[in-house]
């Protein structure tokens, strides 16, 4: 689908001689919302634009759309957090390479008094308890996002068919909304939800929810960048990859959030560092 017009493919043309600044235009990046809502891109964008003569266009969408945009060639680069789908994307030939650059952990948040009593459990046990006791409402993103995908993985690990969970009862609510809205809803319902740390922190001020479960391998959340195979600006795209994985930026990423939330939102992990690579 992507190489039908080989002969005049700008990819081959530009990789040979032209310098980056010959690729005048806008480098379009589709990013998952959780990266953008924290304000990370807002910090990085001017830095990149300063270093390179290119307009960086950040489009914040769900992981699903980001991948679709990539497939259709509407964006040059995607930054997402759904390993399985990323690999599939690269395998299908839409992306050059999946390059992880940061990670953090998902959290199960819930009311302070923890009515279901899941504090300190592993994510799988916590979900089992919720399912069995039906003591606490669980609000699911229900939108096939990366976070939702993670939630499904945990349910699977805990030994449930997702369909059974969906029809398990009124304690399981499918919000079909973004992370922020889902958090607000969980707060309103005095229930639990699975959230990425960044969004939770930025909403924390308005919420009564507190982190209940924040440890466990399954909660790992890796963000990676993939350059599309049919981008018209391969050099600029490569620059962005280099930029994100550069020491300077990795450093900035590692400190991002201290000022506002008192803790780092991301752990940089460019290069062959665990846990990004498992």
């Amino acid at each position, binding site marked *: 689908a992507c190489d039908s017009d080989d002969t005049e493919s700008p990819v081959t043309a530009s990789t040979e001689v032209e310098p980056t600044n010959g690729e005048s235009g806008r480098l379009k990046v589709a990013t998952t919302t959780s990266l953008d809502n924290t304000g990370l891109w807002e910090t990085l964008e001017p830095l990149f634009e300063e270093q390179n003569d290119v307009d960086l266009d950040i489009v914040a*969408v*769900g992981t*699903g*759309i980001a*991948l*679709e945009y990539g497939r259709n060639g509407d964006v040059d680069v995607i930054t997402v957090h759904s390993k399985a789908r990323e690999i599939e994307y690269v395998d299908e030939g839409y992306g050059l390479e999946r390059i992880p650059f940061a990670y953090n952990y998902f959290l199960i948040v819930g009311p302070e008094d923890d009515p279901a009593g899941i504090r300190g459990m592993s994510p799988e046990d916590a979900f089992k308890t919720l399912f069995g006791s039906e003591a606490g409402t669980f609000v699911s993103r*229900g*939108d*096939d*996002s990366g976070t939702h995908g993670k939630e499904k993985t945990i349910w699977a690990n805990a030994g449930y068919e997702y369909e059974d969970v*969906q029809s398990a009862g009124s304690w399981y*609510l*499918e*919000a*079909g*909304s*973004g992370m922020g*809205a889902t958090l607000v*809803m969980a707060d*309103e*319902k005095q229930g639990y939800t699975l959230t990425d740390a960044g969004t939770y922190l930025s909403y924390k001020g308005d919420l009564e929810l507190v982190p209940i479960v924040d440890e466990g391998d399954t909660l790992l959340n890796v963000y990676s960048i993939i350059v599309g195979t049919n981008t018209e600006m391969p050099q600029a795209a490569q620059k962005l990859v280099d930029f994100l994985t550069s020491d300077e930026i990795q450093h900035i990423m590692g400190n991002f959030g201290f000022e506002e939330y008192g803790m780092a939102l991301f752990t940089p992990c460019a290069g062959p560092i665990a846990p990004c690579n498992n």
Partner: protein
Amino acid sequence: MENSFWDAFVEALRLIRTLDPEVMEITWRSLQLAASSSTIAFFLIALPLGTLIHFNRFPGKRLVISTIQTLFAMPAVAVGLITYTLLSRSGPFGDLEWYLTPAAIVFGQTLLITPVMLGLVISALNAIDKAIPETATALGASRFQTYIICIREAKFGILTALVMGFGRAVSEVGVSMMVGGNIREFTRTLTTAIALETSKGERELALALGIILILLAFVINFALLSLQYRKLPWHYWK
């Protein structure tokens, strides 16, 4: 790529033909909610209030009309925010426990479409011959009776107000999403479902739901319009 539309259309027909229970349920809910809010907004607010505003002189009338027309530009998200602020647990109407229920959607949609309907009702009444209310008055109609006959004469425009309001209510997503929460089997409407499927990247399904929405609107409008055409000026018939 053009196939997308065709695929979406086929999918829409499939969903309708198989009477997909989830889609039917969502469609029915959308209809109920939009019908409720447009009924409330039209009959309880826009029609009576618009009539009163049009037929009465009072200081600041111009400003009132301009304000109404300005509120045409009220974004659904903003109405959602306002509704949220009012209805959320900690808000002034929090004890109604409407937030994240269909009631909240009706409330928000009503808020959203009232200015539209009001503005169009006033515009419709403004367009009728000034001699009509006078003739009615001269024939001994009370104020109320005069209003009724003027509304009758302005039928096309008044019905346009209703159709437009219903259309806006059934098609808005900001309010339903924000204050209804798009909860499956409870507050999910066609538009929030479309938004959801879109964000999932399920474009065909989203478009198919959009087509169902349009078909729904078409059925409703045809019912309303059949009223309207019954007495439409002759040249529409020819």
